[in-house]
C-alpha cells in the first residue's frame, strides 16, 4: 500500500530504513532530505569547516546506511547515532590523513585545512560561527566530537556514549574539558566577535 509522502515524513528513521530495504523509493528520498543536513553539519564542524571533505564524508556515510539497510536490526539500533558514529570515524580517518600529509610534505600546505575561519561562513556574514568552527578545530578531536554532539547536535550523554563507544562518565568529562578548551581557544576574541557590543 502506498502512503502519501507527507504521511511518511512522520515515520521514524528506522521504519523508513526498513521501507527502503523493501524497495520504497520515497523512503530513500525522505531519509536523504532528513539525515543529510545533520551529517553534513556534524562532519563540517568535525573537519574544522572543510565543506568539500564534509560532503564526501556525508555521501560515504549515507552510502553505508543504504548498504546496511538490508540487515538493519529493527528495534535495536537507532539510525542517527549509528550515522554519527560512521561519520565520526570517517572524519577521524581524514584528520589523521591530513596530519600525515602535513608531517611528510610541507609543500602540500595549500591542500591542508584552512586555519582561518571558513570562507563560506564569512560570506554569510557570520564571523561568530566561523570563529567557533576555527576554535573547534583547535581542540583535541575526542573533545571536539563530544562538544559538537552534546551542545550543537543536541544528543544526550547516553547517546553520545553509544556513538563514541565510551562510558557516560567519560562523555561528561570530555564535554566539560572540551568546553573549557573551546573557551580558551576563543579567549581574546570577545571584541572581535561582538560580544562586548552585545553587553553595551
Amino acid at each position, binding site marked *: 500500500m502506498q502512503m502519501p509522502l507527507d504521511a511518511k515524513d512522520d515515520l521514524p528513521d528506522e521504519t523508513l530504513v526498513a521501507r527502503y530495504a523493501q524497495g520504497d523509493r520515497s523512503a530513500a*528520498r525522505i531519509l536523504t532530505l532528513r539525515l543529510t543536513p545533520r551529517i553534513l553539519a556534524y562532519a563540517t564542524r568535525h573537519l574544522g569547516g572543510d565543506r568539500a571533505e564534509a560532503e564526501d564524508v*556525508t555521501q560515504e556515510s549515507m552510502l553505508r546506511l543504504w548498504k546496511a539497510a538490508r540487515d538493519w536490526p529493527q528495534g535495536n539500533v537507532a539510525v542517527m547515532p549509528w550515522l554519527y558514529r560512521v561519520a565520526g570515524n570517517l572524519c577521524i580517518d581524514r584528520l589523521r590523513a591530513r596530519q600525515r600529509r602535513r608531517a611528510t610534505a610541507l609543500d602540500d600546505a595549500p591542500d591542508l585545512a584552512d586555519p582561518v575561519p571558513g570562507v563560506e561562513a564569512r560570506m554569510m556574514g557570520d564571523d561568530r560561527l566561523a570563529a567557533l568552527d576555527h576554535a573547534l578545530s583547535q581542540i583535541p578531536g575526542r573533545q571536539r566530537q563530544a562538544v559538537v554532539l552534546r551542545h550543537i547536535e543536541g544528543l544526550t550523554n547516553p547517546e553520545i556514549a553509544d556513538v563514541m563507544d565510551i562510558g557516560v562518565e567519560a562523555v561528561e568529562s570530555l564535554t566539560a574539558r572540551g568546553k573549557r578548551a573551546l573557551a580558551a581557544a576563543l579567549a581574546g576574541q570577545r571584541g572581535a566577535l561582538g560580544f562586548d557590543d552585545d553587553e553595551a
Partner: protein
Amino acid sequence: MTNENDLDGLLQHARQTAHTPAPALIERVLSDAYALQSPGQPVLRQAAPSPSLLSRLVRGLGGALGLAGLTTAALAGVGIGFYDPPALAAWTQTLTPSSAIDTVELIPDLDVFMDES
C-alpha cells in the same frame, strides 16, 4: 572569551544554524540510494530458495534424526540377513517348519462325508 554564557549562546546559535546541503550533494546521495535499490523489490533481501526434493524427503522422514534411525534399522536388517546368528536360528526355524505341506484340500470330496455317515 571567558564568559560561559557567551559560549553557550554561540553554541546555541550554531545549533540553530542549518547546514543546507548543496543540491548536487542531495543528488549524489539519492543516486547511490537508488543504485542499490530496485523499485518494488526487496532486492537487498534475497528470497529463500525453495527446498530441493531430497531435503523435502528428509524432512518427511522426520529430519536428520528420523533418517539416521531408518538407516540404522535398514543396516541392522541387512546384517542379520547375511550372518544369521545362531541365537536366532531356533526362532527362525519355528517360522519355517521342516515338514512341508504338499497338498491342501480346499474342497473336500464326497468320500469324507460318506465315511462319517
